[in-house]
C-alpha cells in the first residue's frame, strides 16, 4: 500500500461510511474520496419511513457520523454528482459534471433505487416514492395539506409509512396486489397480525387490489384499481420494492446477477474493485447460498470485509441476516431468512394482543424467527439458529417454560 494510492467509493450511505472507517482502522494511508449523487452528508435511512416521517426526529439527528469524524478520517466528499461510467482498464471514473477521477482501488456502494411503476398519472403532484431524505422532505410537505393518503404496496416500508402518516392524523389506505400483506417475506400469522394491527389503528387495508391509474388535475385526487374502484387521495406513496444499482458494474464488465457478484471477501470479479451493501449478490456460508440483502447490518458488516480486502487482508463476511421494523407501538425483529421453511410455530398469541413470536423450522432446525415486541425471543432466536441443534418444538411454544432453556448453554 502506498501513500499516493487512492480509494474511491461510489455512494455515501451505510456501506460507504463503514468502509471508509474500516479502511483507516486497517491502516489505509492513501487518499479516500467518496462520491454521491445525493446532496447530503451520510444519513441513516431506516428512520426515513419511521421517526423522521412522523416528525418525532429531525434531519440533524439522522447524520451517520458528526462532520468532525470525516475530517479526522481525511475523506473527501463529492456530493451531488453522479458517476456515469467506470473505465476499469484506465482506472478512471467519469462524472456527470464532465470531471474524470482516477483511482487505484474502487469500492461500489451504490445501493438500490426504488422500482418505478409505469402508471398513468404518476407525474401528478402528491405522488411520491420513498428512498431518500429528499423524498421524505417532499412527503412531509404533502402531508401538511393532506387528509387522505393511499399507499401502493403492503411491504415493510409501505406499512411503516402507513403507520407514520396515521400518527400525523391522515386517513390511510394501503393497496396490495397479493392476497396478504408481506407475502414475499413473512408467514401467514405475521401477515394476519399486521393486517389486524393496522385496522385496529384505523388504516384501511385492501388486498388483491391492483392499481391501474392515478387521477387528478395536476394534483392527485384518486387511485383507480382494476376492479374499477376509486380510492380518494391527496397524496400517494408507491412502495413496491427496489432494484440494485448494478449498471455501472455491468457496463464495466463486472459479473452481475441479482446484484454485483462478490465473494465472501466482498471482492468483485475485478481485482481492484470491491462492493458492499444493497447492491451486492454475495455468498453466505451460514445459509449455504448466495443472496442479496437490503439491511443496514448487512451493509456495515460487508463493508468491513470490503475494506479489509482493499488493504490486502482476508476477512470473510458471513453473518446471520437480521432486520427490524417499527409500526405504531410494535417493534418487529427478524432473525435469519425464513425462505424454505417447512413449519411455522407460534410462541404466544398471534390472534390477540401485540406480543408473540413465529419460529420458522426446517427439518427440525430453527432457521428464522419474527419476534413481535419480544426482544428476548429475538436474542434467543439468533443463538438458536446459529447453534444448529434439533429443536424441541413443544418446549419452544410453551410459554410457561423459559425460552433461554432451549439454548445449549441456557442454564448458565
Amino acid at each position, binding site marked *: 500500500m502506498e501513500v499516493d494510492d487512492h480509494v474511491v467509493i461510489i455512494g455515501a450511505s451505510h456501506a460507504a461510511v463503514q468502509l471508509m472507517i474500516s479502511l483507516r*482502522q486497517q491502516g489505509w494511508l492513501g487518499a479516500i474520496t467518496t462520491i454521491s449523487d445525493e446532496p447530503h452528508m451520510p444519513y441513516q435511512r431506516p428512520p426515513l419511513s419511521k421517526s423522521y416521517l412522523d416528525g418525532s426526529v429531525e434531519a440533524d439527528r439522522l447524520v451517520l*457520523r*458528526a462532520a468532525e469524524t470525516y475530517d*479526522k478520517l481525511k475523506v473527501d466528499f463529492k456530493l451531488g454528482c453522479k458517476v456515469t461510467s467506470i473505465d476499469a482498464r484506465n482506472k478512471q471514473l467519469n462524472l456527470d459534471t464532465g470531471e474524470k477521477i482516477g483511482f487505484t482501488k474502487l469500492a461500489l456502494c451504490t445501493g438500490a433505487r426504488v422500482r418505478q411503476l409505469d402508471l398513468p398519472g404518476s407525474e401528478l403532484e402528491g405522488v411520491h416514492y420513498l428512498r431518500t431524505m429528499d423524498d421524505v422532505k417532499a412527503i412531509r410537505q404533502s402531508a401538511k395539506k393532506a387528509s387522505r393518503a393511499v399507499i401502493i404496496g403492503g411491504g415493510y416500508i409501505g406499512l411503516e409509512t402507513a403507520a407514520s402518516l396515521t400518527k400525523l392524523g391522515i386517513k390511510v389506505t394501503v393497496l396490495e396486489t397479493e392476497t396478504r400483506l408481506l407475502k414475499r417475506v413473512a408467514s401467514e400469522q405475521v401477515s394476519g397480525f399486521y393486517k389486524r394491527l393496522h385496522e385496529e389503528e384505523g388504516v384501511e387495508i385492501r388486498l388483491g387490489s391492483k392499481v391501474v391509474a392515478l387521477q387528478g388535475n395536476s394534483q392527485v385526487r384518486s387511485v383507480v384499481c382494476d376492479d374499477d374502484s376509486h380510492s380518494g387521495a391527496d397524496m400517494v406513496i408507491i412502495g413496491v420494492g427496489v432494484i440494485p444499482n448494478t449498471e455501472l458494474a455491468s457496463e464495466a464488465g463486472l459479473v452481475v446477477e441479482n446484484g454485483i457478484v462478490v465473494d465472501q471477501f466482498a471482492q468483485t470479479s475485478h481485482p481492484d474493485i470491491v462492493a458492499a451493501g444493497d447492491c451486492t449478490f454475495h455468498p453466505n456460508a451460514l445459509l449455504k447460498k448466495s443472496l442479496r440483502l437490503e439491511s443496514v*447490518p448487512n451493509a456495515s458488516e460487508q463493508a468491513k470485509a470490503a475494506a479489509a480486502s482493499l488493504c490486502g487482508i482476508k476477512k470473510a463476511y458471513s453473518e446471520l441476516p437480521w432486520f*427490524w421494523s417499527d409500526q405504531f407501538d410494535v417493534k418487529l425483529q427478524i432473525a435469519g431468512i425464513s425462505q424454505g421453511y417447512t413449519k411455522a410455530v407460534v410462541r404466544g398469541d398471534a390472534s390477540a394482543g401485540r406480543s408473540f413470536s413465529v419460529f420458522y423450522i426446517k427439518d427440525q432446525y430453527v432457521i428464522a424467527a419474527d419476534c413481535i415486541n*419480544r*426482544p428476548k425471543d429475538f*436474542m*434467543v432466536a439468533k443463538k438458536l439458529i446459529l447453534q444448529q441443534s434439533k429443536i424441541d418444538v413443544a418446549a419452544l411454544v410453551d410459554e410457561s417454560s423459559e425460552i433461554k432453556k432451549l439454548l445449549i448453554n441456557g442454564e448458565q
Partner: protein
Amino acid sequence: MPAITYIEFDGTEYHVDVAVGNSVMEGALNNMIDGIVAECGGCCVCCTCHCMIDPEWSEVVGEANDEENELLEMLDVREPTSRLSCQVQVTDEMDGMVVRLPESQY
C-alpha cells in the same frame, strides 16, 4: 462539552468530548472507538452497543428502560451497571464519566 472516558476491554482508553443530547453510543461512533458496534444505529433493537457504566456514575445515568432490560437480560455477561449506550443521553452532569466496553463487541 462533557468529557467521557471509554475504556476498551484490553485497557485502551479514549478521552473524548461528546455533545450534550448525543448518546453515549454516538460519542463512541463519532470518535471511531471500536468497542461499540451499534448495528441498528440506536433503535434499541440490536444489543451491540452494550457498555458498563463506572459504578460511581450509575446514579447520574439512571436505570435501563424496560425494552433495554429485555435485551440486556440475554447478554452472556451483564453487570449491575450495564446499559445500552444508545439509550443513554449525554448531559452536562456526565462530565468526567467513565464507561467500559465489553470484549464481545470486537
